[in-house]
């Protein structure tokens, strides 16, 4: 339960960090909050050759910037800072709805939002949120920069499309359209555990209150965050209750969960339906 040896650097600027990551190539691994990486090291499930610690880059990477258009979260902004940001949560309430379910408050004091995205755990909340809102990440490498849409970022379980030498410097969570309500629900074996199944929903209405759009993103039931458009199911059913069940049936039929020690695939599929119905009601 002790990490294997690794080389360590704590660059003083982002430029230095990118130069170092470029030189290290596949041997380099970024250390931000470490709340996923350090357990993997402690259990010796990962053994990166060289850790590049960005915790000293608070001034360049620690900001949470909020405009009416959305929330930009710097690579070193802790979960707790985003959760506590009234402006960020005002623009996108879904951020707090999801963040309060990320592990425990003490973990959120150290863990970072961008780190959770880069870790790309299919049972993590924030990748699903980024996909649901159609966000993106700003990816820097020595001498260049690119924007990667959420839909392209996640390549598989614990795998992103990031190349060696690249660093996500910020994540962009755009605001949702007017008259959109959201909810985030999950089922865990114990409070704060990884979700057996989780769902984020966003429901948009016209000025008369009729639903014009409904989307959901799922946690722990697919290799990468699954986003479903539930609009048709929700607007064509006969009565309001039927519509919610039609959306729930669509969700249960669309997910592709696996069995593991926490739950069977069948139970996760059942939860995807039940949580979809509950979340749609919570967001109405």
């Amino acid at each position, binding site marked *: 339960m002790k990490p294997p040896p690794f080389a*360590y650097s704590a660059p003083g600027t982002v430029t230095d960090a990118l130069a170092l990551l470029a030189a290290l190539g596949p041997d380099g691994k970024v250390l931000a909050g*470490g709340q996923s990486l350090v357990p993997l090291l*402690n259990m010796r499930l990962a053994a990166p050759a060289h850790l590049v610690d960005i915790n000293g880059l608070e001034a360049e990477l620690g900001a949470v910037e909020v405009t009416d258009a959305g929330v930009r979260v710097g690579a070193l902004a802790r979960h707790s800072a985003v959760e506590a940001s009234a402006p960020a949560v005002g623009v996108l309430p879904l951020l707090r709805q999801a963040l309060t379910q990320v592990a425990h408050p003490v973990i959120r004091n150290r863990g970072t939002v961008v780190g959770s995205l880069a870790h790309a755990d299919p049972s993590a909340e924030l990748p699903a949120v980024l996909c649901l809102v159609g966000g993106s990440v700003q990816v820097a490498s020595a001498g260049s920069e690119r924007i990667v849409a959420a839909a392209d970022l996640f390549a598989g379980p614990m795998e992103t499309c990031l190349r060696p030498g690249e660093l996500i410097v910020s994540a962009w969570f755009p605001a949702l359209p007017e008259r959109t309500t959201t909810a985030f629900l999950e089922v865990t074996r114990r409070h704060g555990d990884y979700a057996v199944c989780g769902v984020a929903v966003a429901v948009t209405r016209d000025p008369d209150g009729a639903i014009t759009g409904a989307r959901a993103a799922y946690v722990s039931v697919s290799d990468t965050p699954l986003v479903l458009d539930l609009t048709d199911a929700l607007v064509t059913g006969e009565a309001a209750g039927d519509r919610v069940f039609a959306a729930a049936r669509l969700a249960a039929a669309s997910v592709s969960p696996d069995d593991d020690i926490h739950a069977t695939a069948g139970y996760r599929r059942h939860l995807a339906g039940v949580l979809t119905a509950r979340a749609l009601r919570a967001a109405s």
Partner: protein
Amino acid sequence: MSEPEPEPEFDVSVVVNGGPRSATVPARRLLSDFLRHDLELTGTHVGCEHGVCGCCTVLLDARPVRSCLVFAVSVRGHDITTVEGLAAPDGTLSPVQRAFAECHALQCGFCTPGFLTTITAFLGEHPDPTEAEAVEAISGNLCRCTGYQNIVKATLRAAETLRTQQQ
């Protein structure tokens, strides 16, 4: 067979419980081990070493973190409070510690340092918590013998004491 290359070491200086402390350690030294082995502050307990049990919780710049999930080298120059730093210099227990004693919130005591640091920080930000908020605050700390009822009771008792002190 040649000797393995010695692991590079780093000078780590931090402020612990108000005083400067330093040691030279490899980068992989966890803050929990740094406190216990290098600084000989064994009040911080180590349970699971992967962030689940909460025993090793210390305050990093006044906010609780898992010391088993932080490298000592990562927090050079920062301010750390361990369970040893909660009581007054003359040994008078802090309100949270006293409430634990009065409410029988510990039996074997292994998890207690983590609870004490977590609750001390929590009450700093939430002086008048509801029972549900207190439960949420300690949800990341495992106790396997006392049971949580008395720990919740102690949390609420400590909150009351702190509020009275401030009046």
